């Protein structure tokens, strides 16, 4: 009995011991501990990541990193805000299989993935109509955004399984999965602390529940263009949500107006009062049926051009305030295509009928009360110049709900307006446009067209954007291999996706800066994608993001030069619009280390570009500018480079067929020479132009009565205040100094007028300027200034005497001398052109 009892007790004890031993194995206790890490570049921001104790092998050695879980804490920032410029990795275990940069792939290796992406894009289109919703996270859940984030992160990674390309693409097909990814993206873009802040707003939690339950809304919020200051976006949305209530927020147009207004006002940093004013204007106008019906069918991205229009203040002089928009909406109601040219409703006036300049506050001052401080109305009553005219047309279209934007041109204001899906220029006089509303802070015309093409191919771009979101998430979770694959498929599938391409290049620079094959693959992808149609964007992508990384890896200089010139071989014309090639050429030549490298480079690009009529003048202009910017030294390098450029010009064709192209090319170059004050080059190009295109010069020079001495200006250079509208005829500027005569615009603005640089310092006896027509307006005098250095100017008297088509300055007794002469006048819109400008005098010795 005793022995049995002993056996039983022993057995029980052993069983107990076994149980004690096995208990942690069978029923592991999850001891939550906190890993505290510092986030790069933001040392004061602490990110907390809650992990199981089994999971963090990497930190085992560092006991100091472990802390006891505080009993009750308000978490600090647990999910850091992630912007588009940086990559932030969370403190999660590193999977060795994922910690590799996958090898560069050739096109054939993408075939399967691209096919899957096509199907995915088709599915997105079908599923949009299904309007997927899932209210998994209730309002109260958003008190703890970190919990939501980590729940979702685990779920997404769990579903992704092997993390290979196929599993990722398969995963994306399910709308429920995409909504999870969108929620993750929202939390990461906002940062969990910002989400927490939103929950403290009166309707914040309710908004978050509704927003994050709705796949279409989330998609439009996150993938309709750039998104900045997400906390502000959500704050503004909450403000609107609170005002209109959940029922109205479901109305598609109201939701679109609300979301795009919030996105744009947050992006621009405009205040909440003005944001609500803008929202109410469009929402009320839409409800009242006062907008153009085209507005009803706009997507979110294009609505942003409308609701995000500039100058939101509701005050005199502002164009985008509700009062002014309302006035335009009600007073300028036109079919879409008629807004282009609506500036014709305004009189062009540099001065009002009281004589006040349009640039002074007095111009409109007395009229404001009468027009109820309404800008468009004021200008319609009084008239204005290019700025007012272009804004008038633009804001008339915007007020009707149609995409448009003003844009700057050198010394001028024009506008862009979309008719259907095509952008058109309005009131434009020059090729250089700097748009005042852009998506990526790239202001040139080509990017506007790129934006249009990118987003009008909506589901293709959306598929790529979703994949970039996935890549960003995988990056954060330290799944480098999978992240690389996602970025690469995304940019391969939608190769004109500028922001995606930029982001991939940044990731490549971060993770595999010396992987020449990958950079080469990216280079080729840019050429094959953007390079087909969007030349400016492609060249900029290469010069800004690819060349600086790829060039140091290419050891053979000739190959590199071929690659550089190959960029331009690819472009047959300017593309959507002429663009400035100088930054690209600057980026290319900056990778040259020696003068020999530079000469070889210059030779190669001149070889290619001089055969491209569109580009020839631009490359010469750049070349002359580059030579002028070189450090002085002994001048031999400059001379050698200039000779190369002049030789290249000499090779331009002179046949009748080629004459126009040569004339335009040399015109651009001579204009650049004048701007650079390169007297010799100016003269060389002028003589070359006369030799090659004699027919373009006047056959008979102007008849003038000169002064004593020589015409000392004949060997100088001449520059004007403007060449707008006449860039192709700049060789005639040289003619203005010659007996033959020429032509150049007579434009006078402040201290800009006609400036002549002479070969030597001279004593002057007189100046004769010949206008292209009789000078009718004698209200403002012409006067002359001289300078020894082109910097410090002295006025000489007497003023010019106007007689017929000539202005004469008799300087016989003035003792005027100098190396530079300029003729000025108070500006007006129209001045007659200049046909001849002759400075008489005697060169000083030494």
């Amino acid at each position, binding site marked *: 009995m005793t022995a049995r009892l002993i056996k039983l007790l022993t057995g029980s004890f052993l069983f107990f011991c076994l149980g004690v031993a096995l208990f942690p194995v069978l029923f592991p206790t999850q001891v939550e501990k906190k890993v505290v890490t510092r986030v790069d570049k933001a040392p004061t921001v602490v990110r907390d990541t809650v992990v199981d104790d089994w999971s963090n092998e990497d930190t085992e050695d560092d006991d100091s990193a472990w802390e006891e879980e505080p009993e009750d804490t308000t978490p600090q920032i647990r999910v850091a805000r992630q912007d588009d410029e940086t990559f932030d990795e969370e403190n999660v275990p590193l999977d060795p299989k994922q910690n590799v940069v996958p090898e560069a792939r050739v096109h054939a290796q993408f075939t399967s993935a691209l096919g899957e992406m096509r199907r995915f894009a088709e599915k997105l289109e079908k599923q949009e109509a299904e309007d997927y919703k899932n209210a998994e996270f209730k309002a109260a859940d958003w008190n703890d955004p970190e919990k939501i984030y980590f729940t979702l992160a685990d779920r997404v990674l769990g579903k992704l399984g092997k993390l290979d390309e196929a599993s990722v693409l398969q995963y994306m097909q399910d709308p429920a999965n995409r909504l999870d990814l969108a929620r993750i993206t929202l939390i990461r873009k906002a940062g969990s602390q910002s989400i927490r802040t939103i929950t403290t707003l009166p309707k914040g939690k309710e908004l978050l529940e509704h927003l994050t339950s709705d796949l279409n809304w989330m998609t439009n919020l996150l993938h309709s263009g750039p998104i900045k200051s997400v906390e502000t976006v959500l704050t503004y949305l909450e403000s609107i949500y609170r005002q209109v209530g959940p029922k109205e927020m479901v109305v598609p147009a109201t939701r679109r107006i609300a979301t795009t207004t919030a996105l744009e006002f947050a992006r621009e940093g405009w205040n909440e009062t003005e944001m609500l004013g803008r929202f109410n204007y469009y929402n009320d106008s839409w409800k009242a049926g*006062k907008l*153009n*019906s085209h507005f009803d069918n706009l997507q979110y991205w294009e609505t942003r051009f409308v609701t995000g229009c500039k100058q939101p203040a509701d005050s*005199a002089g502002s164009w985008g305030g509700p009062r002014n928009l309302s006035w335009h909406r009600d007073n300028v109601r036109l079919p879409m295509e008629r807004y282009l040219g609506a500036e014709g409703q305004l009189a062009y006036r540099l001065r*009002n009928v009281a004589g006040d300049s349009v640039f002074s506050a007095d111009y409109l001052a*007395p009229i404001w009360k*009468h027009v*109820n401080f309404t800008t468009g109305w004021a200008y319609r009553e009084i008239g204005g110049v290019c700025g007012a005219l272009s804004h008038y047309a633009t804001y008339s279209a915007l007020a009707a709900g149609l995409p448009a934007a003003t844009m700057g041109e050198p010394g001028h204001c024009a506008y862009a307006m979309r008719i259907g899906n095509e952008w058109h220029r309005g009131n434009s006089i020059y090729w250089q446009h700097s748009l005042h509303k852009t998506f990526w802070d790239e202001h040139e015309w080509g990017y506007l067209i790129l934006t249009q093409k990118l987003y009008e191919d909506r589901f293709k771009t959306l598929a790529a954007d979703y994949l970039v979101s996935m890549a960003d998430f995988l990056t954060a979770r330290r799944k480098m291999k999978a992240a690389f694959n996602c970025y690469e498929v995304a940019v391969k599938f939608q190769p004109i996706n500028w922001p995606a391409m930029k982001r991939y290049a940044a990731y490549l620079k971060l993770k595999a800066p010396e992987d020449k094959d990958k950079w080469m693959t990216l280079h080729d992808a840019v050429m094959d994608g953007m390079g087909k149609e969007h030349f400016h964007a492609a060249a900029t992508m290469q010069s800004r993001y690819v060349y600086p990384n790829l060039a140091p890896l290419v050891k053979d200089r000739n190959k590199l030069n071929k690659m550089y010139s190959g960029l331009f071989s690819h472009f047959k014309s300017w593309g959507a619009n002429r663009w400035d090639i100088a930054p690209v050429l600057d980026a290319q030549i900056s990778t040259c280390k020696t003068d020999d490298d530079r000469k070889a480079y210059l030779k190669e690009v001149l070889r290619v570009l001089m055969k491209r009529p569109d580009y020839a003048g631009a490359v010469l202009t750049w070349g002359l500018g580059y030579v002028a910017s070189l450090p002085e030294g002994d001048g031999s390098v400059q001379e050698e480079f200039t000779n190369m450029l002049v030789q290249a010009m000499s090779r331009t064709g002179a046949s009748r067929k080629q004459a126009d192209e040569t004339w335009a090319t040399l015109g651009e170059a001579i204009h650049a020479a004048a701007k650079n004050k390169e007297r010799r080059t100016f003269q060389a190009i002028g003589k070359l132009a006369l030799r090659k295109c004699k027919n373009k010069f006047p056959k008979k020079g102007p008849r003038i009565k000169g002064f004593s001495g020589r015409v000392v200006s004949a060997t100088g250079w001449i520059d004007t205040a403007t060449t707008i509208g006449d860039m192709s005829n700049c060789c005639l500027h040289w003619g203005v100094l010659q007996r033959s005569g020429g032509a150049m615009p007579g434009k006078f603005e402040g201290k800009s007028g006609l400036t002549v640089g002479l070969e030597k310092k001279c004593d002057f006896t007189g100046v004769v300027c010949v206008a292209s027509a009789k000078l009718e307006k004698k*209200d403002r005098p012409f006067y002359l200034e001289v300078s020894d250095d082109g910097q410090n100017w002295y006025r000489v008297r007497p003023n010019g005497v106007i007689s017929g088509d000539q202005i004469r300055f008799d300087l016989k007794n003035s003792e005027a001398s100098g190396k530079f002469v300029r003729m000025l006048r108070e500006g007006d819109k129209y001045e007659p052109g200049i046909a001849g400008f002759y400075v008489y005098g005697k060169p000083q010795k030494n």
Partner: protein
Amino acid sequence: MLKNIFKITALAALLAGPTQAAVARTYPDALAKTGRNPIVIFIYGANYDKVSERTYEEFIKKNKIAPYIRQTTFLEMPLYQQPNDREKKDMEKRMGDKRLPGGIWSYPCLAVVDAKGTLRGVVQSPDEMKDPETALAALKVHIDNFYKQEKILERARKAKGERKADLLLEAADIDLNMPSDALGKDASGLENRTGFDPLSLVEALQTMDFDQANAHVRKMMAQGGYSKLQRQMMMAAYAGHLRRGGEGKKPASKELLRALYTEMRNIDPKSTYGAYAEGAIVIWVEGGKLTDDPVPTEINRTGGNVDSSAGSGSSNGTKTAMGSTAISSDDVGAEDADAQDDEPSDADFE
């Protein structure tokens, strides 16, 4: 009862009887058949504008326009945005080889056009187009003016010399565009009206001292033949020149400016330049500013103490032939007065 029935029948007969508008289906058709009567064109957005749709419903479908367009030729003109082939054909058919006249800034609108295709008047502002009653009342004014103007022009065609010029000026003073051929080859007596360029006047005044400027403007005014708007513009140019002073000259005294702007305002107080003059007095004479406050707006006069009795409103001024206040050329000598002094001084009027 019988009386009422008679009245209703008579009214119906009036509306639907021989005085009913001639309805044209195309613009060339309207131009051809209208003769001496005006064409009323209802132009509206047909496929892009809900406001046009509502207006069409009210004006045309409910036929509220009918009583207002008797004797006229009436034409409906739909405008299509990005028209499809069918719509393009419809527009081509309606327009033929003609184009609608310029000067219309907004649709829907009611345009009054003559047989030559000149836009004589248009009802287009939102205030006018807000409801059929208001719009059609405005249309009626244009139509009445049309007949009135045509009548005077008919007399002018038969007249000669000064009489003809007077009649043409009388017609031009009616608030309606003149027909394109109203002047014919002989514009004598109307040169001032037709050749007036306010910016040329501004330029001309710039080279003049104040005495010369005054003499120049007064001479122009005395010549006559200018519209109210043109006379206000003259005053704006003149007062602007004196206000700025210019090279080597001090600006004119504030009291002189007050007098000039008052004269300008009184030519036509309700016009834009009447309002301009009113604003100019507040800003440049009284040193106040125009405030942006809710309607009804009040002018916030923040300037120094101004003796209202010293103001030279029209009641104190000398009436000119044009019925406005004029300043004698002697007053203009005030250009040397101390411009800093807000208070009117004797020197201002020396």
